[in-house]
């Protein structure tokens, strides 16, 4: 057993590197590697996958004791590079805590952002940034995420919405506002109080104020999430051994929600759906990472070309697109140029299609993650052949790049052209994962699994999907969501499974309680409403 349990990175240096995936997980190894090749990454450290196994063998307390020294030293390493301190109101350090297994398991395990905030630090952060709204928005997000992931605040029934979302809706309803960003600072402050009360009432636990205590809670929760139901199911589906464990990466926070010169996004060096060599992705101005992936706000396209294609699909004219939904290439041309250069550099470095997460904080670009992107079977074959033609890989590598079982997707039936010409279009969404699917509508994951078992072909229809829906998505022929972009959970997971998926079909209205799907008249060309 390796005695070293924690590997630091930051400021162009790193103790790990790309080929240490087994020990540092894919995320940790790539964070180290990005530092080494000059891609800007916030400083941090990675706790090894071996520790995950120790965690389940020796128990939480023993592992915390074993890690204590190294983790404290590594926190100081970040503090030094960031010129800030954990829990210091004058100059606070905030971190993110993320999982990262050897093989990518998107969305299966837990992540915590903005860790380090408490009632005094938030005041300092507000003063330091001169942005009280940002400070309290970050704080309420942290309490929300920590409550969910570490303290176990979950919805009680499947029809219920998230308990924190319920509180947010209530606060918004009091003033008759619709959007999260319409809330005042006072309302955000109120949310923090209400969140903490709800946590105490439902779980009996107090929200911890000490940042180190918060950190240990988060580290342990990430390890624990290795054994959550959806992660176990995902491993079973993908044939990932349990012994591999997950690493935990702790990284200084950078903020995409510090105003209009800040942004966050996800991008792919090639098209993960059809494999075309086209840089693409989505971003949101003034937002944090989870906003993009979770599909809560519908993000905008990064490239102008992608944005125009998106607008066409949505039936939006060029003028409206430019005014309301501009691409990052148009709104932040300099950052876009940097991003484009770096995505190129990363693909050339890894010789494979990259799936990257980034944040822009007040005009400065940071990479938070890169990995070989999940892709459909079609994209897998096209990318392998294209990289071969481009001279990036040789023939043998091209053969090894393709996963034989994934070819199955290319052998699935496609729509008959004549039948398709006669088909009546109900609505349009984003082409999130290619293929043809038809089946009966179901709204819940467990119904999808049950109907499938009874021999039905089903289409799972959701407002948006979450990792809890995995088993249902796997049983369905196809997935349709009302919200979420090309990088939403539904889209990413469907592409990984090779399932047909249409996401962000904004015109459909899903009512879980009555198990109905309605079409709002505005975007239905034939103006029919279905009951």
């Amino acid at each position, binding site marked *: 057993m390796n005695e070293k349990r924690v590997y630091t990175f930051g400021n162009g240096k790193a103790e790990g590197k790309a080929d240490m995936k087994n020990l540092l997980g894919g995320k940790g190894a790539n964070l180290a590697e990005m530092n080494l090749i000059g891609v800007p990454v916030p400083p941090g450290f990675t706790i090894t996958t071996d520790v995950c196994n120790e965690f389940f063998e020796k128990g939480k307390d023993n592992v915390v004791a074993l890690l204590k020294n190294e983790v404290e030293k590594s926190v100081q390493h970040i503090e030094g590079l960031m010129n800030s301190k954990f829990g210091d109101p004058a100059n606070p350090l905030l971190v993110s805590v993320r999982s990262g297994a050897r093989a990518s398991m998107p969305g299966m395990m837990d992540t915590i952002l903005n860790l380090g905030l408490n009632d005094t630090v938030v005041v300092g952060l507000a003063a330091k940034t001169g942005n009280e709204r940002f400070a309290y928005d970050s704080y309420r997000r942290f309490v929300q995420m920590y409550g969910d992931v570490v303290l176990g605040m979950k919805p009680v029934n499947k029809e219920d919405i998230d308990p924190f979302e319920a509180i947010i809706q209530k606060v918004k309803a009091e003033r008759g506002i619709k959007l999260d960003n319409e809330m005042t600072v006072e309302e955000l402050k109120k949310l923090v109080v209400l969140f903490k009360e709800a946590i105490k009432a439902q779980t009996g636990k107090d929200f911890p104020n000490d940042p180190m205590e918060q950190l240990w809670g988060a580290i342990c929760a990430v390890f624990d999430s290795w054994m959550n139901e959806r992660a176990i199911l995902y491993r079973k589906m993908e044939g990932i051994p349990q012994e591999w464990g997950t690493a935990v990466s702790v990284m200084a926070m950078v903020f995409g929600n510090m105003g209009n010169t800040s942004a966050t996004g996800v991008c792919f060096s090639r098209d993960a759906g059809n*494999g075309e060599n086209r840089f693409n992705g989505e971003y949101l101005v003034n937002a944090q990472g989870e906003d993009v992936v979770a599909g809560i706000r519908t993000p905008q396209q990064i490239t102008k070309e992608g944005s125009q294609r998106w607008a066409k*699909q949505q039936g939006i004219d060029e003028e409206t697109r430019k005014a309301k939904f501009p691409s990052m290439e148009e709104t932040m041309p300099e950052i876009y140029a940097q991003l484009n250069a770096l995505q190129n550099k990363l693909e050339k470095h890894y010789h494979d299609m990259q799936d990257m997460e980034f944040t822009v904080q007040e005009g400065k670009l940071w990479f938070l993650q890169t990995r070989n992107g999940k892709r459909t079977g079609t994209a897998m*074959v*096209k990318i*392998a*052949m*294209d990289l071969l033609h481009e001279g990036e890989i040789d*023939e*043998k590598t*091209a*053969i*090894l790049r*393709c996963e*034989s*079982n994934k*070819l*199955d997707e*290319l*052998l*699935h*039936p*496609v*729509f*008959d052209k*004549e*039948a*398709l010409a006669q*088909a*009546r*279009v*109900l*609505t*349009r*969404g*984003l*082409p*999130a*994962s*290619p*293929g*043809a*699917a*038809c*089946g*009966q*509508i179901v709204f819940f994951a467990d*119904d999808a699994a049950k109907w499938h078992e009874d021999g039905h072909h089903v*289409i799972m*229809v959701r407002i948006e999907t979450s990792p809890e829906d995995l088993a249902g998505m796997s049983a369905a022929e*196809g997935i*349709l969501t009302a919200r979420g972009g090309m990088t939403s959970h539904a889209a990413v997971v*469907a592409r990984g499974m090779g399932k*047909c*998926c*249409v996401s962000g*079909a904004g015109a*459909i209205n899903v009512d879980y309680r009555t198990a*109905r*799907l309605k079409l709002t008249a505005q975007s239905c060309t034939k103006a029919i409403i*279905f009951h």
Partner: protein
Amino acid sequence: MHEGDYLSLNGTTGEVYFGEVKTKPAEVTGDFAELMELCKKYTKLVVRTNADTPHDAEVASTFGAVGIGLCRTEHMFFENEKIKAMREMILSDTVEGREKALDKLLPYQKQDFYGILKCMDGMPVNIRLLDPPLHEFVPHDLKGQETMAAEMGVSVQFIQNRVNSLSEHNPMLGLRGCRLGNTFPEITAMQTKAILGAAVQLKKEGFNPMPEIMVPLVGIVNELDIQESIIRKTAKKLFEKEGVEVPFKVGTMIEIPRAALTADMIAQKAEYFSFGTNDLTQMTFGYSRDDIASFLPSYLEKKILDVDPFQVLDQNGVGQLIKMAVEKGRQARKNLKCGICGEHGGEPSSVKFCHRVGLNYVSCSPFRVPIARLAAAQAAVEEN
């Protein structure tokens, strides 16, 4: 729209349609075709298909299958007139009665083999002689029994007695496989006549049929010995009568552990081995494939088994029998051709294993052919 209503999704364009939109099978073109060509360049193991009908054979050959590794004959007996003749054969209690029924079956069988051999012209087609227990073919309902009684001019009681006499406690280990051909040699003779008769006809028409006749479920070399001589004798007579000779091979399935253990002896009579890993797994583990569902989930959960051995070849146990049988078999017959035709033939890790133990081909269902081809190429690339 409600739960249960039909929708169709087009994930390539983002369109959502009412109701069910018809689909059609995929094709291998463009990048996919290029990848498959690349596989061809590196692979050592070739991929055949399991196909019982010309349609399956055609689909598989568009996916790049280079022959048929397993053509089951039993499915050919189930259509109307055929099943009647088949039942008559089974229900007769005399050689004459059986031969009369077999004469009715011969033209049907010949026609089926003609279609498949023609479709796979110039490529080997491995046809397995009748394998399943006979009770699978007979009528178990009163109406069916009455029809058969009228057809054959016997009493319903007679039919019922015959049906009952065919019932077995453990049919998968009962009168099936080559035990059928050894108990009723006229079945083997009829099937040989049908296979080679079709081949002769094709040859006369200018085709190049390459039939292989496979004796199933052999455990003792004597079982194969007798079957082989029936096949050869029948062939000789047929070729003399037709004035045309078609080269063909006689081989066996290795699916009983005893056959693997005595592979050197069996190879003296067999020109090729085809590993039937479904039965071989069943008999090596002592698991009934049809009953495994009662304990498999619990075994997987407790990690007694890592995977379902009927899906992923058990390399440490069943795989060792294969390895040994290949080695022993080739000691007796240097150029013994070896292949696999169980479900495992289309499962990537099993295909790679087949490459490593030196099999010549794997055979799998048509839609697994490209998958097996890629896995076979990867095995060859990984070797270096």
